């Protein structure tokens, strides 16, 4: 199912702030996501990948809820398509939410700009690197199903950055 996502860009010339669907946003090269992912993965003494994933979960949840509410989108299929379309439009890659339910589901990416940037800079990774992507999927699942933040745990099982053709994610309802 293909949908036309409500995607309104605005720019405040006085403050220099850029908005996407009234959410302040910024444009940047994908290298930044890879660099801060590396920083998170290599932080000593604590797991900084969790802050990275949680921050994207919150951002995706807020952005998608805003679209669903403002456009009165209530159907699960349409919500799912919009979540996939927002991911694409943000330059994050191509995401398919394969099954979405209260118990969890699955997702895959045939293209991931975080993985692409990682491989361009550092080559193949032994570990999955798309913590931004798994955060996005968690936020999308929560927004689509009408659950709260932290309702889903997402794990990247296969990774483009590790040499796989696709990145595959499993999603489980958080305990």
């Amino acid at each position, binding site marked *: 199912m293909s949908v036309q996502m409500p995607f309104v860009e605005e*720019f405040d*010339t006085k*403050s*220099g*702030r*850029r908005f*996407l669907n009234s*959410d*302040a*946003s*910024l*444009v*940047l*090269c*994908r*290298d*930044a*996501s890879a*660099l*801060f992912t*590396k*920083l*998170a993965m290599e*932080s*000593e*003494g*604590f*797991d*900084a990948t*969790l*802050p*990275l994933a*949680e*921050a*994207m979960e*919150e*951002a995706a949840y*807020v*952005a998608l809820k805003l679209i669903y509410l403002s456009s009165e989108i209530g159907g699960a299929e349409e919500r799912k398509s919009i979540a996939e379309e927002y*991911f*694409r*439009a*943000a*330059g*994050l*890659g*191509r*995401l398919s939410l394969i099954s979405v339910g209260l118990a969890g589901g699955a997702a895959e990416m*045939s*293209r991931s*700009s975080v993985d*692409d*940037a990682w491989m361009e800079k550092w080559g193949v990774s032994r570990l999955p690197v798309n913590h931004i992507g798994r955060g996005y999927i968690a936020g999308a699942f929560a927004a689509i199903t009408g659950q709260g933040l932290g309702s889903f745990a997402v794990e990247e099982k296969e990774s483009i950055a590790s040499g796989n053709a696709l990145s595959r994610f499993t999603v489980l309802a958080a305990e």
Partner: protein
Amino acid sequence: MRTEKAKAVELLRSIPIKADADGVVSAFGASLQILPVNFWNAFLEKLWKAAPESGLSGIESAVEAAAADYGYHAGHRIMSSSEFLSAIGMRDGAAPEDLLHGAFALLSAWGWADAEIAALTPSAKMVVHAWWYFEAGIRDTFPPARPAAHIMRGICRAFMDLAYAKPYPDGFGSFACRQTRAVELGDSYGEFVVEAVE
């Protein structure tokens, strides 16, 4: 200068940034993303909260270093692009000062900051004033005890590396940046002082 800057911002902003069917945004010689400011600030806030007290300054330095790496390498690619050069009316061999003014216009066009160069001593020192920059948003949710715009610091020094240090890629790390005023601490603008490393 603000009028010239406004014109450059408008030109840079008018260049389309659209994703293809695979979610790839190709423009300015690079692959781009359009991400919510809240994502970046929430990440930084969670990072500061999660880091052990003893490791906080190390994490701040790592964030600044990642931003500088980004500003230098991605900045070089973007500032060499035909879109960037034509939008700010430059040709090969243009003065480094023009490159710097264009770089800060691009930061504005892309929603990073409303910033411009307040003082410049070529090859030696640059002072940047920013009336708004995205990292200042942390004051609303997690007011810092000291200046916290580490990404802006990294970006500012990378721009000076690109403008005045050895030709790319050998000039990285030639300048350092201090933040001397901070919107996140209540100042009316942020001030970033970039100087050559001795």
